[in-house]
């Protein structure tokens, strides 16, 4: 059997190839730039304008930064739909008997959207502030850009947990996606500070993706010390690792239970 075992590097390579091809099948560069990316940029614009209307220039910039970063979260979470799509093609029983685990295959199904999320967040954060009259403090703001991939990866891990739930309940994947990211937009410091909410919501926000990563971004923009920024970075990474462990457990459990119950071929 050992000769048949596939290395994690090969699985990752195949996942990356698959991700690129799937993105090419979904979008042309025109539909991507003028359909998808423009829509996301306008989403950030919309919420920033709303924040400016209800508040001040400061709240407008606050919401702009939050909504630019949360684009990466939103796109990374499309893995929920991708995982459900993979199961709908009927590959899960085949993967269960393959010489590699199904877990990395499923975990890799939305990588292209995570990459797209990194691009969208970066473009929104660089392009929109001057256009909306709330420029960022460059060149210091450049230090915040490497934090975007961290937020995207953490959100992706969280999305994988929801995706695992979606594998068992295929009829509610859109509900899972929307109820997955909208609470993040509402309660995780995207539009108003986390401190605005009562303590139970604040406690939940602590273990959600985006919360600490966004705090790190805001700390960089505010010129905070490196230890303060790194503290938030560490917390965001810890949250991501926690969600990743949960995702691996949930995906393994689905196959174990599916084999035991003889329902591996069925999404529900």
């Amino acid at each position, binding site marked *: 059997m050992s000769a048949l075992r596939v290395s994690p590097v090969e699985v990752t390579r195949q996942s990356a190839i698959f991700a690129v091809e799937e993105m090419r099948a979904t979008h042309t560069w025109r539909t991507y730039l003028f359909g998808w990316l423009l829509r996301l940029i*306008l989403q950030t614009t919309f919420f920033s304008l*709303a*924040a400016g*209307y*209800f*508040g001040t220039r400061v709240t407008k910039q606050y919401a702009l930064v939050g909504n630019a970063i949360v684009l990466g979260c939103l796109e990374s979470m499309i893995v929920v739909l991708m995982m459900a799509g993979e199961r709908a093609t009927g590959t899960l029983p085949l993967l269960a008997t393959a010489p590699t685990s199904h877990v990395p295959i499923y975990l890799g199904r939305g990588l292209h959207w995570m990459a797209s999320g990194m691009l969208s967040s970066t473009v929104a954060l660089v392009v929109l502030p001057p256009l909306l009259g709330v420029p960022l403090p460059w060149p210091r703001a450049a230090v915040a850009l490497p934090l975007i991939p961290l937020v995207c990866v953490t959100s992706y891990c969280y999305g994988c947990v929801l995706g695992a739930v979606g594998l068992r309940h295929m009829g509610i994947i859109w509900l899972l996606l929307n*109820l997955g990211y909208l609470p993040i937009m*509402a309660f995780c410091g995207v539009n108003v500070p986390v401190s*605005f909410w009562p303590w139970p919501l604040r406690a939940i926000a602590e273990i959600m993706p985006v919360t600490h990563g966004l705090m790190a971004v805001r700390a960089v923009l505010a010129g905070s010390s490196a230890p303060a920024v790194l503290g938030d970075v560490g917390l965001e990474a810890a949250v991501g690792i926690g969600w990743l462990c949960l995702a691996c457990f949930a995906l393994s459990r689905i196959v174990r239970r599916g084999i035991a119950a003889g329902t591996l071929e069925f999404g529900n």
Partner: protein
Amino acid sequence: MRPLAEVGAGIRLQSALVARTPAQLLVLVTAPLFSVIFLSLAVHGGAASRVASAMIAPGLMSMWLISLDVAASVLSEDRYGGRLELFLSTPASLSLVVLGRILAVSVVGMLAFAESWLVARVAFGVTVPVHHPAMVVLALAVTVLASSFTATLLASAFVLSRSLHVYQNAMSYPIYILGGVVVPLSALPGWVDPLSKVVYLSWCAELLRNSFTATRVPEAGLDVAMALGLGVLALGIAVLLTRHILDMLRRNATAGLG
């Protein structure tokens, strides 16, 4: 009476479908969360006088989302499911049946306004007074009709598209901005104004906002006339476009090639 019967048939069909697949009413789940976002911005920003805008925005967004969602799915799914050929053999107006189907969902979608009002009251302790109840009812009715008329046009426009979900996705936030669903047009740059005038949602948003907040509703007649006028224009184009598309499908024998 036949047009009404055709619209009625569409309403009955869609009601039965929604009862089996309530996922079409996903906006009723997401609207309260959008309410939370806008109301938190208003309360945190200390804009007590603008809470009404925060409250009506999720309702208006829901109406547009439902329109886009149903428009993108209704005819395309019929074509994919092989039902479009059956329509071609009936004397009924496909546009009016589609209008009925969209109306059925849009009317239920109005619950998003009630949800938003409840979120304001229960979660934020904010009561938005209704200064002109009759005007609010009229504004909601106009919004539902104009949304459904416009969605009927979109359904026709989407039916032949190979990238309809790209268009569907791309048409949400631009219309929210141009429609002034949160930020009134008066607070946006002047160059947005001419573009907004042709978006029915901008007239509906203005009418609804004034119905909640203004001591008297200025230019209510103009708002109603423009929203309905744009909607009726869209419906007229939808009827012509659908007729053209069906003729084309008949000529090319491609009705079933979804």
